């Protein structure tokens, strides 16, 4: 058993030698270690290849170079690349791989579904809380293009079927895609035309499956979603992230809301909030986000869903206070030209 460890805890190549008659066959099992944990995960690539055995005769230096900075995804790519150039000079192959430190060219050259994505137009936090009669959700109407606040009338809270409400942060175009999926889902649900309908729990789970499956294909929908609703008197509030992490709670938030809004909610949320109290609580959270989150805009909507139905408010603004002494004459104590 040969074990060679990549230097930056990324790759562990284990090889087994079997000798049968004259031919030596080898199996290369490539496992990967996640960047955060040091536990080896299950093998992701098993190769039975004679010329790979030749490769093993190379010096350890080469293996360590192989190990550096390639995580699980690229190791898969490496093996595929390698197999396609089986008979070429081993050294040459490695030199190629090592020198092309540029990850994305390695990845994108495969032409399959391994794709990294970057969000372009993004929405910031969404906050959702359960209250006495149902669910309240708040989101502002900003769509940022990097650090520019490009769009100021983006509706990030939408109805889903009879019983649910969805709010999204993250890439707006992916949110629109999700809305198309949900539209089709609800359409088919209605086409059954029986007494049954999909409730918030079912929609939440459907979205979880969608997000998780996309993440597994390395092609995520770059959103964090909040899904809430009421069905048959049961209130439901849940959240799904772009990697498929999902859970249910009495109050949820996405993005910065997790850091700025949820501590407030943890202190002040109660089971029996009235509608007015709930709105006030949400406004308090949104004001905090407005002060502290640079991608927040002062134009928000609050949505309410109860057994009776759903309403999304007209956009409005929060009053803010800037009359702090420290803001008057802010440069009075500063040195230099700043």
């Amino acid at each position, binding site marked *: 058993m040969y074990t060679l460890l990549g230097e930056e805890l990324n790759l562990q190549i284990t090889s087994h030698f079997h000798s049968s008659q004259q031919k030596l066959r080898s199996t290369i099992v490539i496992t990967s270690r996640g960047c955060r944990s040091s536990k080896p995960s299950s093998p992701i690539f098993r190769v039975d290849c004679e010329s790979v055995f030749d490769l093993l005769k190379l010096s350890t230096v080469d293996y360590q170079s192989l190990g550096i900075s390639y995580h699980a995804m690229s190791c898969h790519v490496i093996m595929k690349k390698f197999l396609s150039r089986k008979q070429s000079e081993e050294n040459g192959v490695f030199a190629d791989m090592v020198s092309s430190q540029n990850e994305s060219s390695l990845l994108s050259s495969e032409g399959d579904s391994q794709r990294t994505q970057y969000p372009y137009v993004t929405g910031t936090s969404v906050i959702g809380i359960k209250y006495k009669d149902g669910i309240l959700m708040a989101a502002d109407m900003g769509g940022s293009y990097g650090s520019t606040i490009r769009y100021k009338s983006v509706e990030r809270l939408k109805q889903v079927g009879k019983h649910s409400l969805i709010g999204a942060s993250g890439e707006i175009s992916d949110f629109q895609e999700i809305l198309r999926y949900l539209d089709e889902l609800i359409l088919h649900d209605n086409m059954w035309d029986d007494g*049954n309908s999909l409730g918030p729990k079912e929609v939440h789970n459907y979205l979880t*499956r969608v997000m998780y499956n996309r993440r597994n294909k390395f092609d995520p929908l770059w959103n964090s979603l909040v899904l809430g609703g009421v069905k048959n008197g049961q209130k439901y509030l849940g959240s799904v992230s772009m990697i498929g992490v999902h859970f249910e709670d009495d109050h949820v938030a996405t993005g910065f809301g997790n850091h700025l809004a949820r501590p407030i909610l943890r202190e002040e949320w109660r089971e029996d909030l009235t509608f007015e109290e709930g709105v006030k609580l949400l406004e308090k959270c949104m004001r905090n986000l407005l002060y502290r989150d640079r991608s927040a805009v002062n134009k928000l909507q609050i949505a309410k869903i109860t057994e009776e139905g759903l309403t999304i408010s007209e956009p409005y603004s929060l009053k803010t206070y800037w009359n702090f002494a420290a803001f008057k004459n802010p440069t009075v104590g500063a040195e230099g030209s700043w």
Partner: protein
Amino acid sequence: MFRNQYDTDVTTWSPAGRLFQVEYAMEAVKQGSAAIGLRSKTHAVLACVNKANSELSSHQRKIFKVDDHIGVAIAGLTADGRVLSRYMRSECINYGYTYESPLPIGRLVVQLADKAQVCTQRSWKRPYGVGLLVAGLDESGAHLYYNCPSGNYFEYQAFAIGSRSQAAKTYLERKFENFPDSSRDDLIKDALFAIRETLQGEKLTSSVCTVSVVGVGEAFNILGQKTVQALINEFEISGEEAPATVSAAEEAAGGDAAAADQGGAAAEEEAAPMDI
């Protein structure tokens, strides 16, 4: 029904507008041993007659659990029934995986019926030779459906299929108005009575029948032999012999009458699927 030149293929219509192969498939259902189902607003019971071929062999399984909230009883070609049960289980599991929620029985029976319909419109397939009594729960309570080889499905308060099911149907027709508000135990009792009708004088013991229940708050389960025997003893002792004697007289009245009955009912059943 006699052999004729339009019955070789399932894809051949007769001049009268009938698909004989499909009707023959429904005949196969009548050959199977009896299965009955009944429901109240909150519970549904499935029971069937389980006779082993010989003393040496085990009973044929005719009741299948499809999910916690759905069960099915079959009559006819049990192999076809087994395959369809597997399909139903698969559908339920997939739905549960995507939606974390039980598949509403109304939707499952439609999918099942669509699957059966496919076999009536392909020249390289044959219709499934099994009738399914599907009992389960929905948002609106307990339901009982009957799925035909023709691809039709009907919802019932109570129904019986298989051989000598007419006797059970007669019994159920007398009692069905009470079923919606029946308690779970009364429902089981009625099911056992109905089974006894189909046995025509043979002794009803828990070794010849199987009983299963599903209800709001009760997952689908097949009652154990001992439980069933205890229930049988309970109502036989209480002396409700009247239904038995009446039906015994009916049966004794004539094999012809019964056969004609079956035949008449058969003709009726033939027509019904083609109606829709």
